[in-house]
Each structure stands twice: as structure tokens, then as C-alpha cells.
């Protein structure tokens, strides 16, 4: 393919959310939209995948190398997942409106984390 098959999105915080906006653009070899949520691929992850051309991936069903993750989508209640992915410098989207908390809070910055995100908070960046 001569042109990039991936597209860029802006993900902004939802009501009562924190952080962001994140700009996400999958790249070859780093194109997983990694859903670490209960009940399969979350609609937010699905929308990011549809808009960017990234691959939706269920972190609880299959294993992936860290370097393959373009963005992690979590439904974290505020203690563990909220910090683990930012610590690994993986851009992280929490569907709950959490703020930095938990023992790993120091890794959670607005450059790498956004919360309270709904599908409508994700928009394509036209170039």
C-alpha cells in the first residue's frame, strides 16, 4: 500500500471526566485498540477502531505484546488499571469519569490519560 491506511482521532474527556485530549493514530505493528473491559470490546474501543482503522482487541481473551497497543480502553473503578497502562506509557481511555488516584497515580497525566469518555467524545481529525 502506498498510503497510510490508518487515520487519526481526537479523544476528549466526557462529562465530569479528566485529562486529555488524546490524539491517537495507529501505526503498522502498533495498531491494537486494546479493550481491557468487562463483557468484551467496549463501544468506545469499537468506535476508536472504526474511525482509525486500528484493530479492536479484547485484552481478556487474547494476549498481545505491549508494543502493539495503540490505545488501551478500560472500565476502571479507580485503582489498578487506571495506573498500569499510563505507567507503561500506553495512552489510556477510561469510560468512567475518574481522576488520578490509586498507588500509581503519579503516572497518570493528561498527556496519556483521559476519562469519562463516550463514543461521541471521539472525533476524526481530517488532514
Amino acid at each position, binding site marked *: 500500500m502506498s498510503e497510510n491506511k490508518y487515520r487519526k482521532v481526537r479523544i476528549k474527556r466526557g462529562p465530569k471526566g479528566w485529562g486529555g485530549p488524546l490524539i491517537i493514530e495507529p501505526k503498522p505493528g502498533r495498531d491494537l485498540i486494546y479493550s*481491557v473491559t*468487562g*463483557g468484551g470490546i467496549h463501544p468506545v474501543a469499537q468506535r476508536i477502531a472504526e474511525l482509525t482503522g486500528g484493530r479492536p482487541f479484547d*485484552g*481478556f*481473551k487474547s*494476549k*498481545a505484546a*505491549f508494543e502493539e497497543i495503540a490505545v488501551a480502553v478500560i*472500565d*476502571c*473503578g*479507580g*485503582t*489498578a*488499571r487506571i495506573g*498500569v*497502562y499510563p505507567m*507503561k506509557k500506553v495512552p489510556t481511555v477510561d469510560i*468512567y469519569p*475518574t481522576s488520578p*488516584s*490509586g*498507588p*500509581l497515580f503519579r503516572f497518570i497525566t493528561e498527556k496519556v490519560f483521559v476519562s469519562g469518555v463516550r463514543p461521541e467524545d471521539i472525533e476524526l481529525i481530517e488532514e
Partner: protein
Amino acid sequence: MGELQIPPYGEEFEACRVKECSVIKYQATVTYIGPLVSEFLDSGIVVLFGEDAPEELRDFAIIHDGHELIESIIPGDCVQIRGETYRINAVGEVANSNLANLGHLVLKFNGANEVEMPGDVCVEARQLPEIQVGDTLIIHAGDRQEEKE
């Protein structure tokens, strides 16, 4: 009821205060303890996940083989680990779905009566048990009311 199916825990089980009338809501055996669990333990937090949790979460978590939440957890229930029983004071709004879907539970041994985060389950502020592989974790309905004599 006398028909409760309770696996053989031996003397350790006898020593704890679970009564036969208590409804067991969740039951699991610890199968793995992540190398970074102390990051959370030092803050009085125990993070549990089911066996499907990805590697990066296993690092910070106590992994267990539980898979069925029989009844939602509510304040007043008890968590029993290594024969120690802790009363549950508060349950966050997403704690039950986390447990049912992912085997995920965040236990905060802080004695708080209100959760700080929606995933929290706050229990008595007492010394944490030294959890080891093979330990049993049971969440059962509270029976403190009946215990009063």
C-alpha cells in the same frame, strides 16, 4: 441449610467464624501472586483479578480461580482470607460488575464507610493477611446481627 456444598478446608476452615447459615456469595482459590503486588499492599489495597487477566495486570494482582458471583455484595457482608474475617463497610457502584465480569475486586483495608472510587470495596482497617498461593477467599453474607447474644 445443612446442604451447603463446602469444600474441605480442614482445621483452618473450622477455626474461622463462618456459620453454616451464611450465604456464600463468592469463592475462589489464589493461583498466582504478581511480583508487584506490594505496590498496592503497602497502601492497604489488595487487587484481585480472575485468571483471564492480561500479563500487565497480573503483575500487580492476586490471581484467583473464582468465576461466579452468586449474589451481589453489600455492606455488612464479610470477606474471609486465610481464615481471617473482615467486615465489608462499603461497596462501590461498579464493584459487583467488576467481580462478576472479570473476577476483579479492589479491597481497601481502610475502615472507610464510604468508597473513594467506584470500584472500591472497603473493609475493616486491620492487619492484612499474608496471602499465599492456595489460600481460599470467601465472601459471605453478614451474620453479625444474629451473632449478638
